[in-house]
């Protein structure tokens, strides 16, 4: 184990914390896993292209719920209005406001654990932690306490819920662990917008696990927009379980962060489930963004589409690994994967790897991955109308990423995000 892993393992609390017995058992299993394996390293296949150098800071402390953490001076404005705003500061829920629609329940994880919410135990216990490289999940489980539970009752359209994640620099760098649990009952609908921003110079690490259970014919629109500081570390894992005819749509926008790793996994367990995963990542400086996406088709007539676009300038590095597995019996599945990247600099790097495994019949599958440069003829076309070369390049790279934001159902949000992308669009060397 690395020095950092040992340091963190030592920092893990010895007693299993508050809550019912099963939670303590769960925390113990996470702690045991972490003490054995520690954090993943480049020797783990899933982490081959992503090192944890930025995370490895002396004095790194594990955040605990009881301590006072920050001044709370950072107050970023939300991208768009939402019915309900949940505010998180350095991984800890600090409050919520807005009008709660009937049928929507939002609780802190601690409250949900003490009062007991139906299905919560099953959901929390279902999170796989089988691989030696699941160190972040193990750490998250070992310290399971901070988080939010969202429940949408059957037939309810809960509208938009915004989780405002802010990170502020602390005297000693902090690693926080947070769990989000989302339950959508039958025919329920929710738009979950996560917005991540941090103060300048913030070097903290957020380790967030989101688990979502989508009942029959429910729909979760999940938008994740992050513009963290250049030194911030963001490790997220999203685990979605989908019943028949449910829909999960993910839209990820990575505009910031020094080291970002996102593991996105959805399992289509009921027939006719649909899953559309899309994302845009913009890299400059020495920033590193690693997206790992996996779709498991486990029932017939499923549909999945993965659509990711990346622009890398400077010495930025992007990793994109996407896997689709069509299991036996998941006949008449349609699965698409598309990943395209633009390199703006000779020092930038993109590692893209689409994978496809099919064990069923009558499957339509397509996949493609490209890494290229801007179309010079398009640059000339725009310049021939009066745009400067840098304007032309900025417009084209933004347009390239806009193909992701344009997928959003709300044109206002699409426009706001597209403008934000344009503002930080990396320039050619």
């Amino acid at each position, binding site marked *: 184990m690395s020095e950092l892993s040992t340091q963190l393992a030592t920092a893990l609390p010895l007693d299993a914390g508050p809550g019912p017995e099963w939670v303590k058992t769960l925390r113990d299993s996470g702690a045991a896993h972490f003490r054995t394996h520690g954090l993943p390293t480049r020797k783990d296949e899933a982490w081959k292209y992503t090192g944890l150098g930025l995370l490895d800071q002396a004095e790194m402390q594990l955040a605990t719920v009881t301590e006072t953490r920050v001044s709370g001076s950072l107050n970023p404005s939300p991208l768009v209005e939402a019915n309900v705003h949940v505010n998180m500061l350095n991984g800890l829920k600090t409050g919520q406001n807005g009008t709660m629609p009937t049928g929507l329940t939002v609780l802190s994880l601690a409250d949900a654990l003490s009062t007991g919410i139906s299905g919560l135990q099953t959901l929390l216990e279902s999170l796989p932690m089988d691989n030696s490289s699941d160190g972040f999940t193990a750490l998250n489980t070992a310290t399971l306490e901070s988080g939010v539970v969202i429940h949408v009752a059957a037939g309810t359209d809960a509208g938009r819920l915004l989780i405002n994640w802010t990170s502020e620099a602390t005297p000693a760098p902090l690693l926080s662990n947070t769990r989000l649990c989302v339950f959508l009952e039958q025919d329920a609908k929710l738009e979950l917008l996560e917005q991540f921003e941090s103060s300048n110079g913030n070097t903290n690490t957020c380790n967030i696990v989101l688990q979502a259970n989508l009942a029959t014919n429910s729909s979760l629109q999940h938008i994740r927009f992050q513009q963290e500081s250049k030194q911030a570390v963001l490790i997220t894992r999203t685990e979605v379980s989908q019943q028949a005819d449910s829909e999960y749509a993910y839209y990820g926008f990575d505009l910031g962060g020094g080291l970002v790793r996102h593991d996105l996994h959805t399992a289509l367990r009921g027939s006719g489930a649909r899953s559309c995963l899309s994302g845009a990542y913009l890299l400059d400086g020495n920033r590193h963004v690693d997206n790992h996406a996996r779709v498991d088709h486990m029932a017939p007539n499923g549909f999945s589409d993965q659509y990711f676009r990346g622009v890398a300038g400077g010495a930025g590095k992007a990793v994109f690994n996407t896997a689709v597995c069509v299991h036996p019996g998941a006949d008449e599945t349609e699965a698409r994967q598309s990943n395209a990247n633009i390199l703006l600099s000779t020092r930038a790097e993109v590692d893209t790897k689409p994978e496809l495994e099919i064990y069923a019949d009558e499957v339509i599958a397509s996949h493609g991955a490209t890494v290229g440069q801007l179309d010079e*003829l398009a640059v*000339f*076309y725009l310049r*021939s*109308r*009066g745009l400067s070369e840098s304007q032309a390049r900025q417009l084209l790279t933004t347009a390239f990423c806009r*193909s992701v934001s344009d997928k959003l159902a709300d044109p206002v949000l699409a426009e706001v995000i597209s403008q934000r992308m344009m503002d930080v669009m990396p320039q050619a060397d």
Partner: protein
Amino acid sequence: MLKITNLHAKVAGKEILKGLSLDLQAGEVHAIMGPNGAGKSTLGNVLAGREGYEVTQGEVIFNGKNLLELEPEERACEGVFLAFQYPVEIPGVNNTYFLRAALNAQRKYRGEDPLDSVSFLRLVREKLKVLHIGDELLHRAVNEGFSGGEKKRNEIFQMAVLEPSLAILDETDSGLDIDALKTVAEGVNRLRSKDRGMIVVTHYQRLLDYIVPDKVHVLADGKLVATGGADLALKLEEQGYAWLDDGGIKPLNIELAGQTLNP
């Protein structure tokens, strides 16, 4: 307005223009005709400043300025507009957004205030009306999924909004059916003015039935080999370009209204 003298240009190391000279006055429309491979499109691209088109000799003076020293965007801001033979599809860039950015870039160059979106839309709707073009074009990405005719109409529309002083139409008729051709030609005719010069590059005479030029030039093997009035185009239609191969430059049975520029 535009004076091209002894222009030589290479593309991918191959000499395409071999001493082309042309004098265009404001208010005039000149047609340049010629067989495939004569250098017609190269001329438009050289004037617009496309990379990879290397000028090895000669000069181009546009409104007193050395055009060849300017960047493509500076040429555009000085009033040069190339209607592309193959307009480029740009997914994700909204046509209206792009055109406003272009117009405002040109206005900034001329020291004028940018147009806000309301005044811009007013201007754009006016132009669409004059050109008899529907406004669905405004909401789409630049040329994306456009038919051949729509692409060419979009070029003319851009030209109408940007109001260049020199317009070069590169085979604007190629790939158009007769109705689309008429619409495009009508658009061009509406933009004819005493302050604007136009160069219409075409392989076929039929476009010139609708856009009647003041002068017709024949471009062959990188040079203008004949110049005449609008009737020269008709004779070319009758006789084709085959006579060019008969030792090159002396046209058979063609009376020259002007003079051969490069005898």
